[in-house]
């Protein structure tokens, strides 16, 4: 318990250094800090909750194995998210759940503008097709560039860009505040 309290106040980079020296409680603290973000990303990418949690666990175990590679140049959370995203993409490909031809818009309901004032990101992501969701998640959730996403997905860069563009357009429509709410917020802002 005292050990848990001791690591709780440390920065991610310090925790990673301790984890690299074999201090597993330090790594446990990193899992506590970033576990939800990684699980959330995987679900937004389209993984079912149980699968998302399995892959998130695998991602953290992989991160522990490769902790010496983490030099602290970027954020630890972003680093683990990339590992998790790559693991999920690998699994996704293996399961052959998606091919480029499967780009049908059946999963997308972007045209049905809801009158509900606020729709959270998770719900909005559900309106994207699988390739769009995957590309948007990799670029905005895992912080990859379009080129990195293209490499991860083994897809042409242009295809990734167009998936991101279409996905963003749908999200923009979906996440736009309803007119009434917009006016309300505006009014509150003036008060």
């Amino acid at each position, binding site marked *: 318990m005292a050990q848990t309290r001791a690591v709780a106040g440390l920065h991610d980079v310090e925790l990673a250094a301790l984890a690299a020296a074999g201090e597993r409680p330090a790594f*446990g603290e990193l*899992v506590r800090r970033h576990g*939800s973000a990684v*699980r959330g990303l995987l679900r937004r990418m389209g993984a079912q909750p149980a699968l998302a949690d399995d892959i998130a666990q695998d991602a*953290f175990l992989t991160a522990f194995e490769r902790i010496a590679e983490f030099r602290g140049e970027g954020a630890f959370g972003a680093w683990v998210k990339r590992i998790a995203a790559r693991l999920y993409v690998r699994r996704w490909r293996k399961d052959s759940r998606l091919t480029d031809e499967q780009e049908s818009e059946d999963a997308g309901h972007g045209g049905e503008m809801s009158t509900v004032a606020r729709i959270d990101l998770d719900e909005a992501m559900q309106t994207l097709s699988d390739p769009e969701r995957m590309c948007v998640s990799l670029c905005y959730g895992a912080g990859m560039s379009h080129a990195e996403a293209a490499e991860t997905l083994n897809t042409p860069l242009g295809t990734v860009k167009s998936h991101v563009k279409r996905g963003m357009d749908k999200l*923009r429509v979906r*996440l736009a505040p309803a007119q009434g709410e917009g006016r309300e917020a505006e009014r509150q802002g003036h008060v």
Partner: protein
Amino acid sequence: MSELDFELRLDRMFSEPPHFPDAELFARDVETRLERGWSMRRLFIGAAGGVAGLVGVGQFMGAGLFLKAAGSEVTSQAGAVGKAARELLSASSSLGAFPVSPEVLWMTVGLGVLALGFAITRATQEF
């Protein structure tokens, strides 16, 4: 909302981790798997170290006997091996001549193997 504003908003939304009521359980599951993997690895490295230690001691003993045999003017390789084997047998039979009992001697050899295995294990973990 401009494209840039929307991208920034999306970035913010993505960076806000969702709340999971079982977050602590998830972290403990990862720690358990980590612990299990670590134990398995230590077991594996220990076993590998033990085998390596055994091989190492065997090599030392073999080299000593071979040198001894080579030094006794036996020219043919077959002769050397035969002589080494005979010396090994005679060494085994003359264990009683040592000031300690054969059990203690073999125990010492065993401990030596373990120590060598431990050293190799540590070296593997360090490097």
